[in-house]
């Protein structure tokens, strides 16, 4: 059967720190930085607390960079996630990578900060490639843009 958009996390199994990223056929990537713990190819990686899509880290990108040949969306939505490495909350920008067909690997949906579309800047149902040269969606990143002091 197929991993699904809104419930893809269930398909990923395990939690941060467990063995395996939960995606059959995808190589793991353990972080070497204790301040940034976890596996960017796992749906349980801390930064992905509000992500919805294919993880770029499984697609030739990283947690915060796009695969070669795609464009990073200039506009997107932001949420905050708790980093278990330092116990602090970070502001995460979920930039989509755009211009080629869906990567198809590591589908992950988490909605910790997600609000309905009426607040677009806090919503992950929107195709944030809308501001790119091509609105075609390839994968999603989770870029640290600030430390949440709030």
């Amino acid at each position: 059967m197929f991993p699904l958009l809104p419930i893809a996390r269930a398909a990923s199994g395990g939690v941060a720190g467990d063995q395996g990223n939960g995606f059959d056929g995808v190589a793991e990537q353990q972080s070497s930085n204790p301040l940034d713990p976890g596996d960017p190819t796992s749906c349980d990686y801390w930064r992905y607390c509000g992500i919805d899509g294919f993880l770029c880290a499984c697609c030739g990108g990283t947690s915060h960079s796009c695969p070669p040949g795609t464009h990073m969306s200039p506009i997107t939505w932001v949420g905050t996630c708790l980093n278990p490495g330092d116990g602090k909350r970070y502001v995460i920008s979920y930039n989509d990578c755009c211009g080629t067909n869906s990567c198809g690997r590591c589908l992950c949906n988490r909605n910790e900060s997600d609000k309905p579309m009426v607040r677009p800047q806090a919503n992950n149902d929107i195709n944030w490639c809308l501001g790119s040269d091509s609105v075609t969606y390839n994968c999603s990143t989770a870029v640290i843009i600030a430390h949440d002091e709030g």
Partner: protein
Amino acid sequence: MSKIVKMPTHPLRLVPALMAAMCALLGVSLAQLPVEPAPNVETLPEKYPSSWLFAHDLAFYALATGRVYIVDPTAKTSDVHGMVDAAAFASFSYSQDRGELYVAETFYTRGMRGDRTDFLTIYDMATLAIAAQVELPGAKRSLSVTQKAALQVTRDGEFLLIYNFTPAASVSIFDLNKRKVVNDIQIPGCSLIYPHGDKGFASFCADGSMIAFDLDENGKPLNEYRTVKFNDIDADPLFMKFATDDDVAYFVSYKGFVQPVRLAGGEPEVLDRMYLGGAVRQTSYGAGARPAGWQVITQDRSGKIYVLMRPDARDGDHKSGGSYVWVFDPKSGRVIREIALTGNSISIEVTGGRNSKLVATNEAMFLDIYDLKSGAHERIIGGWGPANPFALHAVQ
């Protein structure tokens, strides 16, 4: 309808006129089972039975190639009657009166890239042939996970309303008689479309209010209304999926409140909210159960509201799906029934006709078909590969 290849002498050409020659070539003759005509293409009724359903596939693994399947949940055979394409986060609607399907979609000249054009594609319901393809100017059509409120027909059937987001928000008024966009209405800070009166629409706004418009016959606003702020987006936002009973739209909140809004034209009327969990009767779960999934709310033909519920839901679970459907009677303000699903599901819809069904998109992206009267699970419909039928439209 098939075009004959322009290669009159090529031996591979297999058109009826050449079949006799082909048979002679192969040393064959007519058989006991009759030879069958070609080309041969099926057609559909001009109006679809109210037992049917449109299952709109987002196609997350290949977003440029979404589809809308035409499904009969009551069929013993032929449970899928056809499909139309719905490209790139398309939105879908239809008109039984006009015998037309509507797909607002986005194309690129070179597959995933090149120049973008948005189209409203109009299909004839009987043949699924394209009746018209009208370009939507401005490359501004909203692109999101498929949902009904992105494309709505006004209640009088005259206008199709297309939601745009660039991220500037607007609504294009498409005249279904003239088959063209007759107006664009800016709705800064507001989102999606809900029918309002005979010829108008409402939208949710980021400050917690709704905005609403009455339209004239040219699609121009006659009046503009703004409600009080009743949607607490920070603490307990309303899902933007909706059910309707006559002119009342029903919404549910993350935490399980039901919010009716009368959208009868003129000033929208924000009605008293009710608490699903506080009015539970004969349900397995009380506290901790919350609406969760994608299309979390729908209605039957008698005006009962159906809400997809997740037991023991926590913050962030609002799209994780549910395994119970609560049937809410807006007249009494009570949950009058609970239907246990066979597993976690993300979208629900109720079909009409004498043989009404509750249809739920399950985790495997198949449709579970439940008899509405008994709640019994009857069968599954699916087997459509990677399709994601997130939006379900019962034929009205």
